[in-house]
């Protein structure tokens, strides 16, 4: 988003859309929570859905999403565009994605820096890619295609990874910064992914964040992780989305929010899904941090005036 490079048409449009999501915390939308959510009435907060779950022609998934869209901002999160693969994007899938954006007018639209399809096999996981000039060019080309299709900027999410590629010639943060600069896309900063990757690859998460192009971040993700061991018996973190956000990740989140302001923040929980009140409490904890940051920013403004 920084000046200096030719912005694409998509970059000229605002990052956020109707049903204001500014400064809000949200949660993954799980259909089993719908009755509890409706019983409470409209809430302050937003919901994020995985785009692919709403790519059927009709039926209950669309009823549920329409219901939640009436009273809340919604974020559309794609998980299988396979932007990081060398092969061409699946045009039928891209068309389905565009149709969802048109139909539901989500406040945010995001996808992953990863791949999931090779030739005709879909692996249903976010798989890693090497960071080279060649992969940079192909990722930028794919993001251009997505943004042309949806006619608005995409937020690209940083991955959590367990392996690195010997052929990589640049750091992940350099790669992501170049993608944002060349395509005008925004970024979805997954703070848990930063912590997981930092632990797994032995770098400092704060160092990573200091190198991350924070001015392009339009959304933050938080999630729980699990612990395993690598071949050397040392800690290997798994991006499992199956529990509460870890204390260390909350700390990193506060650091990010202090430096970039109250960016819309989502608590993801995709497996071993708890009762609504537990997930809601996680979002409330994120909201409290966003609100505190907002209040501090306001008081600084007053002091300056």
């Amino acid at each position, binding site marked *: 988003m920084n000046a200096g490079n030719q912005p694409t048409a998509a970059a000229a449009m605002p990052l956020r859309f109707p049903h204001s999501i500014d400064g809000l915390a949200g949660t993954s939308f799980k259909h089993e929570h719908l009755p509890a959510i409706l019983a409470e009435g409209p809430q302050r907060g937003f919901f994020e859905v995985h785009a692919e779950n709403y790519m059927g*022609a*009709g039926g*209950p998934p669309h009823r549920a999403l329409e219901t939640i869209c009436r009273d809340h901002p919604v974020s559309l999160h794609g998980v299988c565009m396979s932007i990081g693969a060398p*092969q061409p994007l699946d045009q039928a899938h891209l068309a389905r994605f565009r149709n969802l954006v048109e139909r539901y007018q989500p406040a945010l639209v995001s996808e992953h820096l990863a791949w999931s399809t090779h030739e005709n*096999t879909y*692996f249903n*996981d976010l798989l890693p890619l090497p960071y080279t000039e060649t*992969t940079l060019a192909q990722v930028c080309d794919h993001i251009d295609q997505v943004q042309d299709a949806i006619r608005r900027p995409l937020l690209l999410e940083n991955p959590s990874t367990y*392996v690195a590629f010997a052929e990589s010639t640049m750091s992940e943060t350099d790669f992501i910064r170049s993608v944002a600069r060349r395509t005008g896309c925004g970024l979805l900063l997954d703070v848990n992914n930063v912590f997981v990757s930092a632990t797994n690859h032995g770098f400092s998460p704060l160092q990573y964040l200091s190198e991350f192009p924070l001015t392009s971040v339009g959304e933050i993700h938080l999630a729980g992780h699990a612990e395993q061991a*690598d071949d050397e018996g040392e800690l290997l973190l798994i991006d499992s989305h199956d529990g509460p956000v870890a204390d260390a990740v909350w700390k990193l989140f506060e650091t990010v929010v202090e430096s970039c302001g109250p960016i819309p923040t989502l608590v993801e929980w995709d497996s071993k899904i708890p009762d609504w009140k537990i997930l809601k409490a996680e979002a409330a904890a994120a909201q409290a941090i966003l609100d505190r940051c907002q209040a501090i920013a306001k008081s600084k403004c007053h002091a300056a005036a």
Partner: protein
Amino acid sequence: MRQLEQHPHASYTAAFASSLLDPERATPVAVAGPAGKRADKRYNVYRNNVTVSLIDALAAVYPAVQRITGVDFFQAMARSHIRATPPSSPLLFEYGRDFPAFIEKYEYASSMPWLADTARIERAWLDAYHAADAEPLTPAALAAVPREKLADLLFTTHPATQIGRSRFSAVTIVAANRGTDPVERIDASMPEDGLITRPHCDVVLRRLPPGGATFIESLMSRRSLGEAAASALEISSSFDIAANIAGMIDAGAFIKIISGEAR
């Protein structure tokens, strides 16, 4: 298969993908841990994510099959299927169309000959769940048709409507095993036909009387009401036309009637 242009850099996905579904193959040499660490357990995280998430996807499509076989049996059967036939679409609700045929040939399931039909009905159930929305035909719309015009009527099928035929009691088996209520002993040897519809939000599965499947399938293939009733009566002389029409309207199987003259 889509012809892919040879990309000079395609190697990293090809190499990485080659061992994902095959535990016998080595960790790809292109990947490593930091500072010279090994990557076997690290790569296994991806292997595990792929296989476990796809097993979960099949379990979500086929909950009654999983309940009947038990989780361990289902996971082993699903794992074999995933290795033989991984998904080709990113839409997981499209995955597993070949699973019923796989179950039919799966040697450890041979003592459950009705299991494949159970899976077929569950597959139809999910397709009905995601089918396009449409308002079902009302009883009043049909009641307004003069008697002498009834035999020539044609029907437009609701996008969700499907017929499942089984040499076994697959409809009863699915109905009993989709929930969590205790299941009584079922005589699996009775042939059954089922009608799967989604009149409004919820998918409905009902058993059809003898001749009922032929009747509805005839209407679905755009034969007239009179022709469909005649076909059903050939299957079963006790076929009750009025009751079957009422049943299919109640189930929301059709959305429109077209008078024979409009043909």
